[in-house]
Structure formats: structure tokens, C-alpha cells
């Protein structure tokens, strides 16, 4: 079993004219490398009618509905994170309730509001109450503001995680750009570290030494297989880990850790 905790799909109201091909390609490549479940999110309209990282409420609803439809069409392969914009608190909480009720299994926070802001607290309180993880977009060491997003870095996510110790947070795409060593240092933290933050191994980055550093910072018990925009690099990291870890620990990364943080029954083996 292999669970991809960081996948994306597209729909007809995104700028991608090739959205069907990209969705089909993800599912086909997933079959080739053995992905059992793609846990995915859709970030509104991906920029067509509102910015990717600042999606409007109508775009969020359309994207979440499109993902629910995909999960309905591929019940054996697709699960969903409900994507919300914390600047619209009431809408976010209502959308979480609606989409979790319809079968989604987690919450996606992108970069609409920094992780240190109090506006994220109501969402995290819902996550704690419903027992679902939060996948949080992270810029590995944000030295300044980047255009198009109010990105958080690992230290900022860890501050949020410390405020909400009952919520399981997934630090997104450790290989997705930026200084991953900064994020790993934040996760390692002081005595005890930040135990409710898990590392999603996705991203196009395949740096030599990154996987060893992830294991050193969090151990195999807090690493999660993921792909994001490049399934090839996800597969490469898995192949590398096969040489690095004994089978029992590799299973943790492949699916057991994911199964332990998502709601019971989210995946076939539960």
C-alpha cells in the first residue's frame, strides 16, 4: 500500500486547458508506481478567477466540489482535503463541515494567511474536534514575502502546531523549494521537538542528503510519502528510502504513518 498525502487535481475552471490530461496522467503514473490512494486538494480556480493562494469562497466551493466528484468517480484511488481560506472564517468552517460530511478526510491550508495568525485558530479547533490532519503549504525558510502568497515557513507552522497540540499538521513538500534544513531544525526544536508535525516528502527537489536529514530530524515515524507536482521525484525518493530503511520502517513512510493520522476508515486497510 502506498498513500500519496500531497496530490493535486484540476478542473474545467482552472487556467489549464489540459486539465483532463493532467488528471489522467496523475492517475496513470500513480498506477505505475503503486499509489493506492491520492490524497488531493484543489486550490480554488488555480488563479483563473482568484489567486491560487488567495482563493475566493466561490472558487473554493467549486474546487472542493470538483474534488468530491473525482473522489466519487475514483472511490478506490482518490481522497480529498477540503481547501479553505482562513480570511473568511465563517465560510471556512462551514466548508470544512460540508466537505468532511461528504467524505473528505483532511484540511488544506495554502498561503492565504500566515500560520502564526489567530485567524487559523478556529480552523485548527475544528480539525481537533473532527480528528483530521491539516496539510499546510510551507516555504522552506521564508526570508521575505514572496509575491502571490502569504507563505509560512517551518518555524511558523511549528508555532501553530505548538498552539494546537491535538492537531496533526503535515508540513508540505519538504522538497518543494527553499531551505529544507531550516524547516527540519524547526521540527527538531527544543526538548521533545514538535511531535505533532509530520513531514511530507513531496516536491521536485531530490537533494542528496535531504532524506537522511529528514530521518535524523523526525525519524521514520513522522515522514509521509508524497508527490505534489512531480510523481517522478516522489518515486525516486521512495526508491532511495528502500535502500535506507528496513521494510518495517519503509512501510511507515509509505502508508502506515498516514493511516495513523487520517480518520479511521479513510483508507482501505483501516
Amino acid at each position: 500500500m502506498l498513500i500519496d498525502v500531497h496530490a493535486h487535481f484540476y478542473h474545467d475552471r482552472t487556467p489549464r486547458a489540459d486539465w483532463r490530461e493532467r488528471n489522467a496522467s496523475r492517475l496513470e503514473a500513480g498506477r505505475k508506481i503503486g499509489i493506492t490512494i491520492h490524497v488531493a486538494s484543489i486550490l480554488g480556480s488555480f488563479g483563473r478567477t482568484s489567486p491560487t493562494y488567495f482563493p475566493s469562497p466561490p472558487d473554493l466551493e467549486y474546487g472542493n466540489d470538483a474534488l468530491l466528484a473525482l473522489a466519487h468517480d475514483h472511490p478506490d484511488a482518490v481522497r480529498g482535503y477540503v481547501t479553505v481560506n482562513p480570511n473568511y472564517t465563517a465560510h471556512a468552517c462551514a466548508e470544512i463541515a460540508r466537505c468532511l460530511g461528504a467524505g473528505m478526510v483532511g484540511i488544506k491550508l495554502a498561503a492565504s494567511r500566515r500560520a502564526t495568525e489567530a485567524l487559523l485558530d478556529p480552523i485548527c479547533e475544528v480539525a481537533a474536534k473532527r480528528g483530521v490532519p491539516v496539510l499546510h503549504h510551507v516555504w522552506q525558510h521564508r526570508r521575505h514575502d514572496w509575491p502571490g502568497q502569504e507563505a509560512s515557513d517551518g518555524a511558523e507552522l511549528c508555532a501553530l502546531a505548538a498552539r494546537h497540540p491535538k492537531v496533526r499538521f503535515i508540513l508540505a513538500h519538504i522538497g518543494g523549494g527553499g531551505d529544507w534544513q531550516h524547516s527540519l531544525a524547526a521540527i527538531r526544536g527544543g526538548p521533545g521537538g514538535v511531535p505533532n508535525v509530520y513531514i511530507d516528502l513531496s516536491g521536485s527537489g531530490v537533494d542528496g542528503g535531504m532524506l537522511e536529514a529528514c530521518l535524523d530530524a523526525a525519524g521514520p515515524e513522522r515522514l509521509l510519502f508524497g508527490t505534489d507536482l512531480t510523481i517522478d521525484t516522489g518515486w525516486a525518493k521512495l526508491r532511495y528510502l528502500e535502500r535506507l530503511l528496513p521494510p518495517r520502517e519503509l512501510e511507515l513512510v509509505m502508508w502506515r504513518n498516514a493511516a495513523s493520522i487520517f480518520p479511521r476508515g479513510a483508507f482501505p486497510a483501516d
Partner: protein
Amino acid sequence: MRVDVNAFVGAYPYRRVPGASVEGLLHAMERTGIDVAWVSHLPSVFWRDPMAGNVWLFQATASSPQLRPVPAVHPGLAGWERVLGEAADRGAPAVRCDPLYYGIDAAGPEMRVLAAACGAARRPLVVAVRLEDGRQRHVNDRVPELAAAAVRALIRSDEDVRLVITHADRGFVEEVHFGSTPEEAARLWWDVSWIWGPPEDQLETLLGTIGVDRFVFGTGQPLRIPESSVAKLDLLELPPDQRAAIESGNLAQGLAA
């Protein structure tokens, strides 16, 4: 036969990288089924005289027939012509130059002279677009990435020069390829290390639009794990002849000196 045209040995100044020794490289090659690697000396990319690393490179690779040395040439330093000649004498499959790390214009007069000399010596010139993702580089690592315009200028500068460009992404490859004449483009080879696989399928797209014969296998190891380049080819499920062309045949036909 799988030939990696984009490998290094030696330490990287900006972070700890495991497997950077000759033994580490050989182990990684065995692990990933790479038969031959074109190898450069990583530390000297950052030296004032990068050619000073070549002696070590030749010695380190001498006892390992699966490692082919790709020595550095700095065309702004006196004596570079001798280094190019030595590379040919020692059977180096190519030479490399990292002009922006050396602080010279990537398409300036020194590089054009080097390009012409490489053409005359029948040695391909290896040039990297980048070594690391620009978003993660060390705060003091401010060297610009190679511009596509520089590659277009170099390939036009001499009718015999052949370039192997590593670490280029899809947009870069397309800009140079379609910004060149067919004759110019036929003297350019691209390693696959930085080109995305599915679901974006950028490598598959390029193989269809630009052609299988323009691509060679490269990894960027040890800065990048070599499994990445193998995985993206495995995902393509290419016909055996096309896979073989990328992994070694294109080198044998177009680049072997």
C-alpha cells in the same frame, strides 16, 4: 549501457552532501545501474582557478574505468589552452566550464574563444544552467543562473562547437531549441535531470516536440539523488531503442570524440 553525463565528486561548500567521494559515487552508480559517469570536480567550481582541481580529478578517476573525467577549463586564465589539450590527450570525453561561477560573461569573448577551441579539439563543452534550486541556495550563493540567451549565443559562435547543457528545465530547453536553426540545435544535447515527469509530463512533451536524439541521461549526483533521472525514464515506458538512445546511444553517435 547507461551513461551519466552530469556527475561530480568532492565536497559542496554550501551544505553537507553524503556520497561525494569517488567510492560514494561508484556505490550510487551501482545502486542505480549507471555504467559510466562523466565526472567533474565539484569543489573547484568555486575556486579562483578551477583548473587546479583537474590533477586530482585525473588521479581520482584513473583507477576506475567507469569514471570518465570532465576537467574544468577557465578561458579567462592563462594556460587554459594547455588544459584543453591535456583533456584531449587523456581521453576526456568533454570539458566543462561554469562561467558565472568564474565571474566571466557566459556569452562573452572568452567563452566564444573557448567554444571555438572546443570545436576545433572535437571536445563537447559541458555547461550547467544551475547546480541547485534557486529557492534554496545559501544566502551567500548569489551566482546567477545561466541564461538561455547565452546558450544561443555560444552555439551560434562557432559552427563546430557542441554543447551539453545540464540542469535545464523545459522552458529553457524550448527557448534555446526553437531559438536556434536546425543545424545549431543539432549540436546541442540536454540532460534530463531537471525536466519534470508526470503528471506535468514535460519530458514526454519535449521528446515529442524536440526529439529523442537531443537528450542524454544525466543526474547531477551527488547534489541530487540519481534515482530521480532513472525514475522519470522508467515512467515514460519508452521503446527500448529510444531509451537506449537517451542513456547512451545519442552520446555515442553525436558526442563521442
